[in-house]
């Protein structure tokens, strides 16, 4: 890599001191003053409002829409239906790659899930468009809906998650279980969950000839641009997408969703800019969800509590028309050492929208089952659950046998346990009470998430006033990308962060890949880092080749970029400012480019994961069954931390999602109609402030020389894993009742035999 050649030293030691600093969010002022402009805040001249009409049946056909009634409503301008929708250049059901999800764009009258868009009403006011959608009063030919994990014949999917094999094994699980002196078998169920970012999916679309301007939240600008280009048959460069802020994404904004495309179609139909914002209930259908699972785990240990076999089977569901299979069993690939591991998946097709990546897809779902099973196994062995986990600590990745690129999990266990006070835990359940007499339970869960990277590009500029520019079409959905990436940019350019103009969040900037898989800081950060190195190298060439520069002839020794100056590596008394170098060369600016991708050699040699240990305390009313997570301590090791303030917030957020998974989130589907019955934030519960009174996240030091030159692993999703299981295990420890259906609701503690 060029920067290594330039400096002969690890890249991140070279420049400045922005990385690692707990800067506050650079977009903080915009966000606390209401000035941050989210998609739905835009209002171009002449804009009309579009509102979806969605199906109330899960399967069948729309036989009637009262278009005249909707059109007769004052201020309604147009109704877009299959009869008059603008023609697309591509069948939205076409699929040329696994990440091209099929979209419902009014191509026919078929209904394949509840809340599927069936028409769009466009009006001069939001109120009129909203009522117009109601006035369509659709009638249907309804077919019986297939809902639930037993609704149809199951099959083995060709791949799960991002394309992992549905079945994997190492060693002989059957023999391992046979020879084990202790065995458990347990089945756990998880339910459908919906991302429910606070910001509903929104789009403001404006056509100018065949040029398209879009404001919409996106976790993957380049992919969205490509998808829209394909659907409308226009070159990607004719499409300009602005996504400066996402009001949360969590996976649901990774790919442009059907309703967003319908906004673009509506704008084309009426020839005016259109704004389309999903109503909250409409987010329970066409914009993805986490699929339900039923997971069976069989574990066996020897006499000393060493695992001999792990068998993890998952049954899940996808839609009838597209493929996304929650890779829950894969959680068992990496966590615990066992000579024999088998993981498998089967699936059914049901009448729902297509499931999608949702914060820690597979990992969260699989983790709560695996961590519960590990706890049950520890109990069967009469061992402390933490001691059991340490006993089965994986020194190499169990499924592959590869060494870990780094793994500070022992430190996580130790530091987390110490802060939490784990040593005072009773072994037996239902032994601990607080002052008021509430049951107290302590549980632990191991957190893990793969350290992955996608491909990205960045462009760096140094200007003759000594300032820098870094451009990358990255995405900030709340992780703090605008801050963390600017920190990396500043170090990459050898400048103070205030001297760097960081440009991001639009589709005409270099492709930053997708903000998903907890990979964005590593992916975009490495492209930024490389672009910085490239522009510094070019600047250094200018200086070291110029007899008038104090750096003349330093090409072999190399230079260091810091504080807007280049220093000779072997003699730091010789230096020159960027401004002076460019001025003498008569250059207004100098530009560099960089890209990032995974290093295939490291990838094939090492298993790369972030790790953590989460300790949960719950209190449970012994008679009323109400549960509260009174304390959470998570200790996480995820390589280099770019900004500890933001990373801590990411861990907190993930941990709260873990609480939510264990105790709250549950999309209730009516078994007859297939309609979600709680498509609102009043009854689809996510935690409120009072649900998480005490959070602590410990940032455990970890240095990883292999994941990437910056040593960054991801932090966005790992907090969900481990936490969900820790909470579930704490509920068992408090009550003595092992609930295997998630979320754990109080009725199961009132009447466990139910």
């Amino acid at each position, binding site marked *: 890599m060029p920067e290594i050649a330039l400096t002969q030293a690890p890249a991140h030691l070279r420049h400045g001191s922005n990385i690692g600093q707990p800067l*506050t*969010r650079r*977009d*903080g*002022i*915009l*966000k*606390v*003053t*209401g*000035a*941050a*402009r*989210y998609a*739905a*805040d835009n*209002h171009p001249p002449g804009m009309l*409002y579009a509102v979806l009409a969605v199906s109330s049946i899960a399967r069948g056909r729309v036989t009637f829409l009262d278009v005249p009634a909707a059109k007769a409503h004052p201020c309604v301008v147009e109704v877009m239906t299959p009869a008059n929708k603008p023609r697309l250049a591509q069948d939205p059901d076409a699929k040329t790659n696994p990440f091209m999800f099929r979209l419902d764009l009014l191509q026919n009258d078929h209904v394949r899930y509840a809340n599927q868009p069936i028409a769009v009403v466009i009006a001069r*006011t*939001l*109120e*009129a468009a909203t009522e117009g959608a109601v006035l369509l009063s659709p009638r249907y030919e309804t077919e019986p809906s297939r809902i639930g994990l037993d609704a149809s014949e199951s099959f083995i999917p060709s791949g799960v998650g991002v394309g992992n094999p549905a079945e994997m094994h190492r060693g002989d699980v059957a023999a391992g279980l046979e020879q084990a002196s202790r065995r458990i078998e347990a089945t756990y169920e998880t339910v459908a969950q919906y991302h*429910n*970012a*606070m*910001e*509903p999916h929104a789009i403001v679309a404006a056509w100018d000839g065949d040029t398209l301007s879009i404001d919409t939240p996106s976790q993957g600008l380049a992919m969205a641009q490509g998808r829209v280009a394909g659907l409308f048959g226009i070159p990607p460069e004719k499409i300009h997408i602005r996504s400066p*802020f*996402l*009001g*949360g*994404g*969590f996976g649901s904004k990774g790919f442009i969703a059907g309703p967003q495309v319908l906004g673009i179609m509506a704008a084309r139909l009426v020839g005016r800019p259109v704004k389309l*914002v999903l109503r*909250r209930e409409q987010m329970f259908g066409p914009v993805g969800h986490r699929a339900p699972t039923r997971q069976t785990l069989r574990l066996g240990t020897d006499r000393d509590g060493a695992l001999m076999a792990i068998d993890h089977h998952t049954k899940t569901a996808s839609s009838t028309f597209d493929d996304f299979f929650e890779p829950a069993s894969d959680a068992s690939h990496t966590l615990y050492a066992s000579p024999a591991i088998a993981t498998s998946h089967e699936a059914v097709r049901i009448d729902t929208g297509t499931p999608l990546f949702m914060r820690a897809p597979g990992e969260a779902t699989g983790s709560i089952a695996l961590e519960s099973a590990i706890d049950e196994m520890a109990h069967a062995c009469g061992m402390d659950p933490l001691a059991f986990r340490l006993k089965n600590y994986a020194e190499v990745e169990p499924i592959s046998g590869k060494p870990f690129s780094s793994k500070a999990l022992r430190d996580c266990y130790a530091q987390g346990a110490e802060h939490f006070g784990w040593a005072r835990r009773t072994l037996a359940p239902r032994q601990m009470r607080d002052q008021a007499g509430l049951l107290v339970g302590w549980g632990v869960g191991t957190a893990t998430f793969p350290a992955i990277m996608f491909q990205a590009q960045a462009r760096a500029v140094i200007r003759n006033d000594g300032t820098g520019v870094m451009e990358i079409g990255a995405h900030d*959905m*709340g*992780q*703090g990308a605008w801050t963390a990436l600017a920190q990396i940019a500043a170090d990459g350019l050898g400048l103070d962060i205030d001297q760097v103009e960081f440009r991001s969040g639009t589709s005409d900037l270099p492709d930053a890949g997708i903000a998903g898989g907890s990979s964005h800081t590593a992916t975009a950060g490495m492209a930024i880092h490389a672009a910085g190195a490239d522009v510094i190298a070019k600047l250094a060439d200018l200086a070291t080749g110029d007899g008038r520069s104090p750096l003349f002839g330093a090409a072999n020794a190399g230079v260091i970029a810091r504080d807007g100056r280049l220093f000779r590596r072997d003699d730091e008394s010789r230096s020159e400012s960027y401004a002076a170098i460019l001025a003498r060369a008569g250059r207004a600016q100098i530009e560099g480019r960089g890209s990032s991708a995974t290093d295939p050699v490291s990838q094939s040699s090492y298993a790369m994961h972030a790790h953590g240990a989460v300790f949960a305390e719950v209190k449970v009313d012994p008679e009323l069954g109400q549960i509260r997570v009174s304390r959470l301590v998570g200790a996480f090791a995820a390589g280099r931390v770019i900004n500890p*303030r*933001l990373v801590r*917030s*990411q861990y*907190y*957020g*993930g*941990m*709260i*999602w873990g609480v939510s998974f264990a105790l709250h989130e549950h999309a209730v589907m009516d078994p007859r109609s297939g309609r979600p019955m709680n498509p*609102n*934030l*009043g009854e689809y519960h*996510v*935690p*409120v*402030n*009072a649900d*998480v*009174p005490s*959070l602590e996240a410990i940032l455990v030091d970890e240095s990883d020389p292999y994941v990437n030159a910056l040593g960054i692993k991801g932090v966005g999703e790992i907090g969900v894993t481990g936490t969900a299981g820790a909470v579930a295990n704490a509920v068992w420890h408090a009550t003595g009742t092992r609930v295997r259906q998630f979320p754990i609701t109080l009725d199961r503690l009132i009447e466990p035999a139910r």
Partner: protein
Amino acid sequence: MSLSISLTVNGVAREVALDDPRVTLLDLLRERLDLTGTKKGCDRGQCGACTVLVDGRRINSCLALAVSYDGADVLTIEGLAQGDVLHPVQAAFIAHDGLQCGFCTPGQIMSAIGLIQEGQAGNDPERVREGMSGNLCRCGAYAGITDAVLDAQRSRTELDRKHAA
């Protein structure tokens, strides 16, 4: 009855002609008065993103029919900072990282100001958490939010003490 209403919005008196009685205070602010800092998360009083102060009290503007608020004094997130000087609650949210995606933040901040003015929570973290539970944050910034509110409450108490002295 005419559907013209008078509102004071962030200190500015405005006459608003409503062509439709269905307009909520939230949609009035966002779609007709170009005050888009107030956010719509659920439109049903279930998330708190639309929280504004009306006559000094925090309410969900999505469940407030604009026409019924004729004569009201409305304070939104845009009306807090004095030029470049942030309101102490705004500054505390940044300092304590009481935000991530920022979408619920205007509502959180207006709610926090309302809570402090209500004077019921004081410096009790549990009362602050309960008092802020009408504002969902899907990113999970609750710890920072609670710390920010406690911090702002503390500054205000100190200020009050100074004034009293």
